[in-house]
């Protein structure tokens, strides 16, 4: 860079600076700065290029085939004659695994983030953070391999019992808690202490019985389920949720940390427990930051390729019934990755361009959600800093 040299020589003749020298210095500084700016601007140029080049190859598809078939039909037969490019089932598959992973990852991620920021002491947190970082670092293809080679056969062979045990382990503590809290709430109106205790015990046994029946009934029905194929939407959702978790945890932890001590201390001083403080004070204050975290995590699931390609079964159809997570699905990312090999030989055909159309769809969704989450974060920062 020309600018650096002249600045460097300017230094050596230190204190006496003539007007001419100052002018040269100014010019070189300007040149240097604009060179730096140009380098920094490459980021923006790259983004524009990505949009342009993906769109350039996507537009011919819509010119040839129009929009209707792509978004409404679910007949995906790109190799047939005449070919059919109905991508609705594929879009639906993407949405389905994304929703499934969000269903698992969002509650877990927020709970873990709260735990990290408000519950665990700092000395323990130091050891938890690397675990989350390692989970984020494991390559997606390793997760995909795990899903295909270990999880899929497990689900296929022991699907029913696995579902039952998961239900038991997750549901029983929640139901127990619900029973205690419900009986407490119902018997609250009784004034007399002695009577209230008796009523409470009765309610506990009554609600407990209902809970037990529910537990056994659902568990038994789950055990009877036979999973026909292990490479299904459930498998992918589980794996994707663990890939989205690190993002959700770290971004929402930042949001929770940003809330500050004074709100927490005020709440504790008023006699609230930690759970009440978190739920009623901190979560509302950090809600927009957490929403941004959720959006980023969901985007991670939607854009993930290798796991869904290897373990989703790649069957382009809408499951029956529509929420059946035990059937194979096919996603946008897996279709792009899988069909390009065959489409590549006929560059220029609709079959080639339809994959770019899918890429453009993904790109637009990611752009919009990124934009939204960024706006949210900026707004939260403004609110919390009191502007």
């Amino acid at each position: 860079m020309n600018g650096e040299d002249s600045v460097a020589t300017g230094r050596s003749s230190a204190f006496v600076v003539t007007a001419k020298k100052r002018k040269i210095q100014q010019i070189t500084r300007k040149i240097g700065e604009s060179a730096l700016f140009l380098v920094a601007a490459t980021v923006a140029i790259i983004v524009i290029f990505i949009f342009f080049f993906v769109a350039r190859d996507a537009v011919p598809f819509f010119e040839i085939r129009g929009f209707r078939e792509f978004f409404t039909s679910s007949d995906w037969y790109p190799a047939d004659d005449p070919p059919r490019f109905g991508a609705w089932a594929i879009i639906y598959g993407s949405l389905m695994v994304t929703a499934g992973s969000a269903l698992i990852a969002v509650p877990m991620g927020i709970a873990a983030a709260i735990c990290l920021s408000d519950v665990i002491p700092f000395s323990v947190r130091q050891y938890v953070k690397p675990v989350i970082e390692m989970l984020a670092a494991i390559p997606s293809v390793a997760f995909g391999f795990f899903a295909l080679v270990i999880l899929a056969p497990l689900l296929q062979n022991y699907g029913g019992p696995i579902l039952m045990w998961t239900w038991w382990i997750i549901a029983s503590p929640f139901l127990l808690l619900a029973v205690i809290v419900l009986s407490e709430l119902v018997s609250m109106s009784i004034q007399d202490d002695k009577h209230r205790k008796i009523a409470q015990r009765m309610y506990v046994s009554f609600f407990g019985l209902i809970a037990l029946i529910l537990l056994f009934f659902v568990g038994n029905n789950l055990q009877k389920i036979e999973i026909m194929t292990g490479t299904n939407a459930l498998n992918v959702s589980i794996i994707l949720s663990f890939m989205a978790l690190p993002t959700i945890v770290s971004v929402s932890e930042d949001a929770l940390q940003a809330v500050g001590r004074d709100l927490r201390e005020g709440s504790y001083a008023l006699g609230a427990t930690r759970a009440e403080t978190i739920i009623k004070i901190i979560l509302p204050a950090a809600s927009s930051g957490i929403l941004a975290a959720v959006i980023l995590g969901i985007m991670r699931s939607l854009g993930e390729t290798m796991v869904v390609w290897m373990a989703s079964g790649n069957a382009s159809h809408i499951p029956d019934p529509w929420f059946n997570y035990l059937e194979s699905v096919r996603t946008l990312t897996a279709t792009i990755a899988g069909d390009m090999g065959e489409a590549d030989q006929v560059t220029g055909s609709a079959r080639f361009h339809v994959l770019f159309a899918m890429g453009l769809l993904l790109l637009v969704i990611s752009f919009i959600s990124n934009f939204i989450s960024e706006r949210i974060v900026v707004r939260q920062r403004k609110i919390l800093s009191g502007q």
Partner: protein
Amino acid sequence: MNLGTRKLLDQSFTALGIGSIVIMGMMLLVVLVPILTNGISANVFKGTIEHRRMQYNEFHRGDRDALQREISEAAATRKTAYDMMSTFEAELNQMDEVKQAEYRDKYNQVKDAVKSLLGPKPGDELPELTRFRYGQTRWEKAQERLREVLYEKKWDYSNPDIAAKEYLVSRAESFQGTSLVKLFPYVETNIDRMLLPKWTIYWGFIFDSSIDSHIFGGIWPEIQGTMFLAIGAMLFAFPLGVIAAIYFTEYAREGFFNSLLRSANSTLAGVPSIVFGLFGLAFFINTLKVSESKSVIAGSLTLAIMILPTIIRSAEEAILAVPKTYREASLGLGSTKWNTIVTVILPAALPGILTGGVISLGRAAGETAPIIFTAAVSVGSAIGLADVFNSPTPALSWNIYNLASEHEAASEIRHVQYGMVLALVTIVLLLNLTAIILRARISKKLKG
């Protein structure tokens, strides 16, 4: 609500948080432990005489005389089995047509199973494909094959409501009354003398190239390809990212243009990885034509774009973490802004910048989707440094996918797949570990 319930709710809330962290930790273990144990078994396993024979023939490793002795020892035991088979063949030709038709098929199955267990019979013509020239090289695979020799697999379709069940029929029973019946107990009792299993540490798994599309040999071409791609991506992205970070932290003034650049950076960070692959194909290969078709350079450029936002962000953070006093002291001594940046701020921020670089290197090594269309090829030998501009390369991440889902003998070479996954995960996690240690050292230093 009374105090007891409120406390209970509070505690269960805490338990929920700790529970989800524990589940995350367990998931990490559940993923890593099988990869580790099975991956190591690609390097350390009970190798049979066939493994040593293959090593000698294909890689010229091992002691010739000792091998010869072992081969003749195994051949002596094998000969009895082959003799039994030829006796039966003679018997088969004597039988009447109905019986011959009954036994011919079953006998061919036995013959194939024995062939896949022990390799081609001595004196037979050597098959074209390397994979058929040797018997089972791994002891656990040999035992699976032994079961195929001893039992016939059949499927029970009697209940149409459930999926067909598998059951085994002893072959010794179906050959009852013929001379072949002696073969099965003989093979079962003498299998270890036929194959001479020995614990083997096979470092060649890492440093050999593959033979006959990964049926034998190692994964060096993949490891090398991964290194080329990741290092190439760093060569492009690291300088670019650090300079951009310097601009953002030191020179950029708040304003519309600057915030536009920043949101461009976060948009780039959010683009799905497969879209980078599409962009690489459309831009670097089809438009710029950096190479005829897939090449290492096109893959590296694509990966570089992908990791650029991470590098910029971590470099920015590292530069911002340098205490203000450093900057002020330097400026106070009369040095210019650029000088301050180069001689004071960058050296102080270097460990932090390197941390981000190391993490990005790991990400570039592990990512698959961007290189599918731009650089990866399923079969191939290691390429030289001069070939990076025009030839594609095998890479760990892509070949794990390829071997696990597209290879014609995917379930036969699970150990190779596990070995590859272990290699990839080790590379990525070691890089991350370096980053974690670096960061710990920085925070210690900043604390004083």
